[in-house]
């Protein structure tokens, strides 16, 4: 294997794993639900994205092109925001305690913070 590509792959793999880990650490460490929501939906998704790129590069050596990864990535990037949106709605609906009060219904989104 080309050492340059190997280095790139190692970097991508480590980067992806690190982002994934950060997402889960955030999921554990952050104080309230709406904050916690940020960690996995952004960080973990990005991390997996990086891993998928690594995999795509790895399996595309020679004259074959690996397209599976593209499909997984597409799936993840379509679904992650929807999941986050739904979870946020559910949290608002249930009135989960947050540090920052959510905007009241009818108020503009950049409403006054309490």
């Amino acid at each position, binding site marked *: *294997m080309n*050492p340059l590509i*190997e*280095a790139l*792959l*190692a*970097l991508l*793999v*480590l980067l*992806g*794993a*690190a982002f*994934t*880990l950060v*997402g*889960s*650490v955030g*999921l*554990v460490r952050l104080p309230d*639900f709406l904050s*916690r*929501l940020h960690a*996995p939906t952004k960080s*973990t*998704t990005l*991390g*997996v994205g990086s*891993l*998928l790129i*690594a*995999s795509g590069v*790895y*399996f595309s050596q020679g004259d074959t092109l*690996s397209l*599976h*990864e593209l*499909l*997984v990535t597409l*799936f*993840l990037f379509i*679904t992650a925001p*929807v*999941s986050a949106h*739904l*979870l946020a*709605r*559910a*949290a608002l*609906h*249930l009135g*989960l305690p947050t540090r920052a009060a959510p905007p009241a219904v009818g108020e503009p989104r950049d409403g006054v913070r309490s």
Partner: protein
Amino acid sequence: MLSVALTLALAMVALALALSLWRLMRGPSTPDRILALDTLYINTIALLVLFGIRQQSQIYFEAALLIALMGFIGTLALCKYLLRGDIIE
């Protein structure tokens, strides 16, 4: 070089999996648990991708693909249940 990186990465993802599981068991609210389950699904994808590179096999990809799809639908159903109760209406 790559194999060292892979081992390291696998360990990190495994740790991430364990952390997500902790949140899943801990809660405290139901959206927390759903979020944790969703993260668990995505962590699993990461795990499978890494494992695939290490084993030089693409046989794990369908599972990863399916986890991506199924994880989302599970989250969708659970959230819909919280919001509306009746999920098929």
